[in-house]
């Protein structure tokens, strides 16, 4: 698989990372290097091997359904850029 420069721009946009023209060319070649590596791994026969969802061969531990967190709004909002009436404020977004 080979990424086009447009693929790189699209991924950068989806990840909300600003990437300049020169950088895009550089990332294109670096990402293609990663994809080459993946292509080599995909050549391995994995028929009959269950896919792993996690690198550790363990299962999730669960917590009991209980309210354990106190209200720490004041502490959290002290470091927020802008708040009003208990809300976090962000630049206006409407779909």
């Amino acid at each position, binding site marked *: 698989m080979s990424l086009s420069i447009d693929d790189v721009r699209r991924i950068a946009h989806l990840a909300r990372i600003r990437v300049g023209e020169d950088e895009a060319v550089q990332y294109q070649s670096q990402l293609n290097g990663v994809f080459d590596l993946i292509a080599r791994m995909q050549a391995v026969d994995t028929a009959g091997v269950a896919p792993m969802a996690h690198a550790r061969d363990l299962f999730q531990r669960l917590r009991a*359904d209980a*309210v354990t967190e106190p209200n720490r709004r004041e502490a959290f909002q002290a470091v927020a850029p802008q708040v009003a009436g208990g809300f976090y404020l962000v630049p206006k977004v409407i779909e």
Partner: protein
Amino acid sequence: MQWETVIGLEVHTQLTTKSKIFSGASTAFGAEPNSQACGIDVALPGVLPVLNRGAVECAIRFGLAIGGKLNRVNVFDRKNYFYPDLPKGYQISQFETPIVEGGALTIQVGDREKTIRLTRAHLEEDAGKSLHEGFHGMTGIDLNRAGTPLLEIVSEPDMGSATEAVAYAKALHGLVTWIGTCDGNMQEGSFRCDANVSVRRPGEPLGTRREIKNLNSFRFLEQAINYEVRWQIGEIEDGRAIQQATVLFDSDSGETRMMRTKEDAHDYRYFPDPDLLPVKLDEDWIEQVRATMPELPQARRARYQTEFGLSAYDAGALTGSHVLSDYFEAVVASLPKADPKLVANWVMGELSAALNKAELGLAESPITAIMLTKLLGRIQDGTLSGKLAKQVFEVMWTEGGEPDAIIAAKGLKQMSDSGEVERIIDEVLAANAKSVEEFRAGKDKAFNALVGQVMKATKGKANPAQVNDLLRAKLTG
């Protein structure tokens, strides 16, 4: 030209846990903004999610209730997108390996049953809420809802009309509240529907679908689908192709409008969340949950037909919610003489009508199951005719009080003294000589007129069957 409608629903049900799916913050509705959003919910750097056992258990209950396959190992994934009500930049959801796959739900459309297949049900976290008004050109974010556990239930495109879609949504609503995994409160957003709608000519492959987002009432679901179907047919008949898109329903105009097309649809770049290990459901746990399952609506519906002799329609209506079904059974069980049909008629007739009119739920009914039992008992022992019982019901509803006290106070007792009834009949016969003559001349209508006169003279308190018998005896004797 004939058209076929194809509908599939995705329903987000908020689970009834006390705490969030990945944090110990409270899920209680209506709290001060951001007072129930802890470090995990606001996505402080370095925090880690810890899965709530209660949320997983709700999903197991649902999977058992619909006869689905419970994936013994299931996986949480990250669904990546940017929106301020989702501070992590991704929603934790389940993509490739959801907790529940398959299963089915039987719905009732008129007196016909139809089975709707389910595709899957997966656990995920809800996002926060955005308020776009009142912040001087800014958007206010409340993260109390962020991290609230949801079970998203996805159906196959098995519904062929808005009516069927609503029947399915109601059946699903009935089921999740029945098994206690969701409180079903649609005003508070605990049960939200997205409808995938397409049209095609019979026999042709599926048409292109548009998805109507966030329908939070059965009425809006029906209106939105009906509008969307008409719109799509109009477009195709005018020679335009349908483009895959997400649309919103405007309940004021009754129209759907485009939110985004497929071209700018999100690319969510799902991948397994490295912060969460796969979830294992062991057999012991599943069996423990199974042991706590109530008798399900489908089973009750069948039992009402075989054991109580009710029609499929009555049985379906009475098992629409757990509260209604329990109320019905409580009255049936405590009546002196078993008569499920009488109870069914009253519960679905007078009681439902009064509740609808007052816009009350059964839980808020001023007439409890015990009170209704007492009233119906008075029909069974002959104290009240059906008509008088309705008058007593009316007083119980508006003024409250015990049926017996109301019967005594308002003098609504049915006349059972046949001497008294006979005296009134004699008076009526004397005053209506013409009708008597007509009857003797062979006019049956005249007989009914006489019965009517007697009922009127007794202010409806005579037993109509008794009046009939006595009157006929007198006229022909």
